């Protein structure tokens, strides 16, 4: 290069000019009049307050309306403790199953080409498009006394409906898409080159998965697990159909909230509800953190 910049001003002034230009560009982008901007923002904030923040506040207000002692007493009830235990157990089972299914499905879809792939992708979304009540009824039809496997199950003395297995199955079905959905785009974008590199360097399939694939998708996996868990703990419709509402045995937290509310035990109902609300808040925060990690992963991927 032979041309030289003849003269350049001090760095600070050119910086200032750049900033001023940026500010101008920003203002020029805002073409709407100020009044319109204020109205739009006000509507959005009002809506959020009334429909999102207010209900959350009301839940906690009701839960603590008779004091902290009453709140903890409600949570210490054997029925409440049983519901919490059952909810945690069911969530653990369904998250575990969906983690495995989701990984396998995403792996198959992202890394291989096979006939029926599009159909499989569509099928994964089925639980999202079906009403949870229907999802529950499907299991009643399959495993109920009059169902396809009902007779066989009774002969072998296996209880699925109105017991933990039924609740876990229904929850797993309803929450199936979360992990797969989180992983498919991520794995598709990452492609297979790193895996190919690992294999050509002498790694076995298992080594490749553990050392290369898994570290690349771990934030995506956590993201899927988080959403899957939130839905699993909060699921009402499908679980309600298969649970049988046996007190202290097959009531999950959402089911117990409804029962207590119908019995006018408002403090107890909202105390359990407040736990679910807290789960939601924690999920939101964790989600934000994970999304940041996922973005970082994307940046690192940017060649």
């Amino acid at each position, binding site marked *: 290069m032979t041309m030289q910049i003849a003269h350049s001003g001090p760095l600070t002034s050119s910086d200032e000019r750049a900033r001023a230009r940026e500010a101008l560009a920003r203002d020029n982008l805002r073409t709407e009049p100020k009044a319109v901007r204020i109205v739009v923002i006000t509507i959005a904030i009002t809506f959020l307050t009334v429909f999102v923040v207010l209900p959350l506040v009301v839940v906690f207000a009701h839960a603590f309306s008779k004091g902290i002692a009453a709140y903890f007493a409600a949570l210490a009830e054997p029925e409440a403790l049983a519901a919490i235990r059952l909810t945690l157990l069911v969530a653990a089972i369904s998250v575990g199953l969906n983690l495995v299914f989701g990984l396998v499905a995403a792996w198959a879809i992202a890394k291989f080409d096979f006939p029926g792939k599009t159909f499989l992708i569509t099928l994964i979304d089925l639980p999202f498009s079906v009403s949870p009540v229907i999802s529950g009824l499907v299991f009643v039809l399959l495993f109920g006394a009059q169902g396809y496997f009902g007779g066989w199950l009774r002969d072998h003395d296996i209880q699925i409906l109105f017991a933990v297995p039924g609740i876990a199955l229904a929850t797993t079905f309803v929450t199936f898409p979360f992990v797969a959905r989180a992983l498919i785009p991520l794995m598709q974008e990452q492609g297979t*080159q*790193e895996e*190919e*590199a*690992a*294999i*050509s*360097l*002498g*790694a*076995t399939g298992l*080594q490749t998965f553990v*050392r*290369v694939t898994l*570290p*690349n998708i771990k934030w995506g996996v956590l993201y899927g697990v988080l959403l899957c868990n939130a839905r699993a703990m909060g699921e009402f419709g499908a679980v309600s159909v298969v649970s049988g509402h046996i007190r202290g045995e097959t009531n999950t937290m959402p089911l117990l909230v409804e029962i207590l509310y119908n019995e006018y035990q408002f403090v107890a109902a909202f105390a359990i509800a407040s736990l679910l609300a807290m789960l939601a808040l924690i999920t939101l925060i964790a989600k934000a953190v994970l999304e940041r990690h996922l973005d970082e*992963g994307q*940046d*690192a*991927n*940017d*060649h």
Partner: protein
Amino acid sequence: MTIEVRNLVKTFGSFKALDGVDLKVESGELVALLGPSGSGKTTLLRIVAGLDWPDSGEVLINGEDALAQGARERHVGFVFQHYALFRHMTVFENVAFGLRVQPRAVRKDEAAIRTRVKELLDLVQLDWLADRYPSQLSGGQRQRIALARALAIEPRILLLDEPFGALDAKVRKELRKWLRSLHHEINVTSIFVTHDQEEALEVANRVVVMDKGRIEQIGSPGDVYESPASAFVHGFIGESIELPVQVEGGVIRLGDRPLRLAADGLAPGASKLFVRRHDMLVGPPGSGAFEGAVRHVRNFGPVQRAEVALSGGETIEIDAPRDKELRAGDTVGLEPRRYRIFAGA
């Protein structure tokens, strides 16, 4: 180590990626597979590496049937166009990967692995980057790390898929020279794929020109440039003027104009005349085989590039020395110093 492929065929659906390819690479050679995209060169490379499988044919590495082995057992170093570095590992761990995944029985101990990785990073002159992550490196650095990683397993052969394809022109030129001297140093049998003729001609001992799943010509860089074996090779390598001509009764015609060129030994029928741009000599009107009007001239580098509308109707670009200035509107005679005619439209 020699590499030999025999009658390799590979189709993707209805697309014939490889259509009967035979190639033998001698020990210590650095061979370039050159061709346009879709010519099958990357497919050929991936089949040799074991990352793809042919429909039929044979692959022999050092005389042994390589198709009986998976990619893992072939002991082949592969460098990807987009580096494929492990993004969550440091540069050091990337290079160490091939050593760490070896079976316990033959795996080196930690100290030996460290020494080896250090050696390799020295070899690619990037030892100061050991603790960085791939995302913190420039493209050229990433590709050198990818090469160090491939060399870590002491591969029997080295395969590079468009190794400089994703880099900018200046870095590319540097790395080309570097790759050649590195190959000289380690002397491992290597094949690299490229669509850049300059890269192929400058780096390789031998160039394999491919088109539509077939090998068009194999030869030294000089051979493929000076005596192209087919119309495709002539058109693809070097900058050529291509004119459709008719050969009949010992006369070559461009449109309805006979050209003052010898037609000895040419088969009659529609043919293609090829001349390198710099082989078209400029003279006064009526002096050469062609005549035309200069449309416009661009001056850069050691030559002037002129667009000339031939009286037959075609417009061609020529590279003329700058000693005699050409101007738009000039009428000139053009005489090809060297030319080749290939039969077929």
